[in-house]
């Protein structure tokens, strides 16, 4: 029997506002526990929430970038449940009328494009954190995160496998980072997702019973959890049993999902409209202003790089796909006009280093400024391309300033043609048999002479000059 998988993702994106969704409390990450908590975050009696308009503007940016319906009137609801890290005993969310309605996003898997429809994106407040392993027999509560604005992006169940799910998550991450509405930092929990997975017989129109896997925060785990879950569900169905609708947790150490609570045990959240908050109305002018100031998105950048910077389509695509790399490209272009050279370095050596270390550019020690400097030094012939590679490696390791590395290691390229000519002549004089062989037709020996000059100059000779000088002397 063959099976089809149906996947839907709920992605929680932490919006990069400086204050919380309903209070003036700070959203900065990493502070001492319970220091970024004000009266409202603490849910003291008699305090009232006031909606943060900045969070709405960020949500709207996402909506516009995904061609979504913007609900210019949106409302808040309360989701009621008890938990120590939920100070009010309810979470304020947008159940009935979310700020962002139906939209869509393009993903690409192995060269194939696919459109994934987005059901909605709504604003809600985050809960605090329960810390179970710090105090023996007790649970600690840190409310710093409580009230932080989240945009929950809900996809249609149109994702067919783990690879597509990862591509979708990456596409969302790309868009929110380009829009500057989220830092995209998965390690700090700025993006987390719940995955709904179900399996049905091929061709069957009715969806199978789904399981929801909660709170996954890395690409790798999304893929692994989904694949584990698909196998589990198929095993159950093939043995004649049925899948139970439930919430599951992914254990990354054991690489398995396990049951957290069944549908019967699920909370009845008793949603109802939040009476403390009036509907939030976005005026036409406000919407227009957000639309007019929308940052350039990857597709637009790609197009511009091909048309204006004359990059190959494939280079443009790689550079435009990461906000950090696009920034690096644009900053270097502002200093050095050689866009092809810049693109070569980004797509070539830098991408190779990223792959080797399996990191994103923003996690590396290379800054835009330092990269632009490196390009400038190649361009003005201070260093050769070959030396530049070793400088880049040094920067990659230490994050040190490019000029400082060039200076301290004495890497400045030898431009003095008379000096190079003397060195070349010496090498020719000392290697008569090779000279004879070369002149006799062994063209490949030319490389030997270049190598010798480079060896003599510790790689600092300008390669172009060396070529020209050797050709002249050997002819």
């Amino acid at each position, binding site marked *: 029997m063959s099976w089809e998988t149906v996947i839907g993702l709920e992605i929680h994106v932490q919006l990069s506002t400086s204050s919380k969704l309903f209070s003036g409390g700070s959203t900065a990450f990493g502070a001492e526990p319970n220091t970024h908590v004000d*009266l409202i975050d*603490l*849910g*003291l*009696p*008699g*305090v*009232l*929430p*006031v*909606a943060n308009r900045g969070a709405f503007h960020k949500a709207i940016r996402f909506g516009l970038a995904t061609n979504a319906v913007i609900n210019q009137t949106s409302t808040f609801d*309360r989701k*009621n449940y*008890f938990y*120590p890290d939920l*100070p*009010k*005993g*309810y979470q304020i969310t947008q159940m009935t009328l979310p700020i962002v309605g139906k939209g869509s996003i393009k993903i690409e898997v192995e060269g194939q494009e696919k459109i994934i429809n987005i059901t909605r994106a709504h604003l809600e407040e985050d809960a605090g954190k329960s810390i179970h392993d710090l105090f023996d027999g007790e*649970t600690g*509560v840190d409310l710093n995160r409580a009230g932080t604005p989240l945009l929950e992006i809900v996809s249609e169940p149109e994702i067919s496998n783990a690879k597509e799910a990862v591509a979708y998550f990456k596409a969302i991450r790309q868009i929110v980072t380009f829009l500057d509405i989220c830092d995209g930092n998965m390690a700090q929990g700025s993006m987390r997702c719940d995955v709904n997975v179900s399996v049905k017989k091929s061709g069957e129109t009715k969806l199978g019973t789904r399981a929801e896997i909660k709170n996954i925060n890395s690409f790798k785990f999304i893929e692994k959890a989904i694949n584990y879950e698909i196998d589990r569900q198929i095993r159950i169905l093939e043995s004649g049993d049925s899948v139970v609708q439930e919430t599951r947790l992914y254990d990354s150490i054991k690489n398995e999902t396990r049951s957290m609570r069944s549908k019967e045990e699920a909370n*009845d959240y*008793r*949603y*109802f409209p939040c*009476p*403390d*908050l*009036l509907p939030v109305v976005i005026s036409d002018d406000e919407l227009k202003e957000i639309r007019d100031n929308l940052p350039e998105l990857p597709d637009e950048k790609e197009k511009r790089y091909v048309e204006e910077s004359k990059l190959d389509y494939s280079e443009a695509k790689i550079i435009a796909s990461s906000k950090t790399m696009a920034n690096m490209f644009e900053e270097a272009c502002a200093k050095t006009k050689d866009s092809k050279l810049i693109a070569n370095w980004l797509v070539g050596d830098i991408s190779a280093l990223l792959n080797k270390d399996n990191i994103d550019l923003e996690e590396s020690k290379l800054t835009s400024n330092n990269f632009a400097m490196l390009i400038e030094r190649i361009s003005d012939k201070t260093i050769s391309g070959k030396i530049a590679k070793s400088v880049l490696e040094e920067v990659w390791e230490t994050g040190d300033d490019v000029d400082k590395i060039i200076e301290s290691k004495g890497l400045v390229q030898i431009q003095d043609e008379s000096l190079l000519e003397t060195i070349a002549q010496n090498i020719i004089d000392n290697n008569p048999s090779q000279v004879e062989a070369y002149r006799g037709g062994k063209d490949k020996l030319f490389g030997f002479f270049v190598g010798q000059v480079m060896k003599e100059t510790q790689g600092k000779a300008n390669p172009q000059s060396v070529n020209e000088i050797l050709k002249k002397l050997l002819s």
Partner: protein
Amino acid sequence: MLSNFIPPYSATVIENLENAGCISVGKTNMDEFAMGSSNETSFYGNVQNPWGLNLVPGGSSGGSAAAVAAGIVPAASGTDTGGSIRQPASLCGITGLKPTYGRISRWGMIAFASSLDQAGPMARTAEDCALLLNEMCSHDEKDTTSLDEKIPDFTKNINSSIEGLKIGLVKEFDLSKLDTDVVKVFEESKKHYESLGAKFVEISLPNISLSVPTYYVVAPAECSSNLSRFDGVKFGKRCENPKDLEELYIKTRSEGFGDEVKRRILIGSYVLSAGFYDAYYKKAQQVRRLIKNDFDSAFKNVDVIMSPTTRGAAFEAGSKGDDPIQMYLEDLFTIPANLAGLPAMSIPNGMIEKKPIGLQLIGNFLDESTLLRAAHNYQITTDWHLKTPEVMS
């Protein structure tokens, strides 16, 4: 639940009064979490009515009403979710005003039912209430439901004549079911208003009979959620030695809340539950809208609406027994103004067996001025508001 809780912040309404030079003498007793009509649900025991120490002062703001009636303070603040200013004002023989919803910031007021709660002044006279209201109102950025409307000087037109004022009498309020004494007092007030030049118009509020059931869905629903924060985790009471988290919640809330509060949390949780939401909460919100529409239509033809505030004068503590429905019906006349968000007040208009009783005036949206003018005109020509209980002499 909160006897050990000292708030590290003040309420906007209190700050406004203090900024105007008022001195807070203390906090007054009230029904627990403002849920009650007799003060008997108070955690601290019930307040006695200065007009008879065996009588209830009404509720929930019974302490404020009794303090004013006894002459302890010239004025007090109260909150009114379904009649909690007006009913005790009536039972204690003082004047109390619930403003338009949103006139006074709710910041710092412990929420009972957020869409109904409104603070207001309680004093001997309508004029005093107007003076207080001038200071209590403000648009507060900390409360998004507080109205960004111009705040008039509520004392300005208070002395203007009410010649030609159109007063609505609600056809659906069946006064024949009330004590004859109450009806008699009400009829006398009508005559007095006629003598001042007011005209009576019969109006119909077709859905008004649904007010109490609507209120007892909406208010408990909101309270069930608003009171979730009292869970023993962060502040207030925490039970002794819970064996796990669930027991912490159950014991803290079982020990910390009184019966009436628990009853309303249970009702509220029920009406919001999956499967019941549409039948109860959603339906109640629809009916609430209809009731508001009824008032909107009525106010096209009248300036104020008049009714008794309460079904009778103050009753003896313990006399309503354990029947919560009887207690809920105490607020029959006061609840509609909360559901519609309209301003309403109670002024003393007679005595029944040496116990004061009040007259309710309901005003149009934001039109406290007309209410206060109607009340003041009545008070400068009558002396019911000047009567004082024996304890003061």
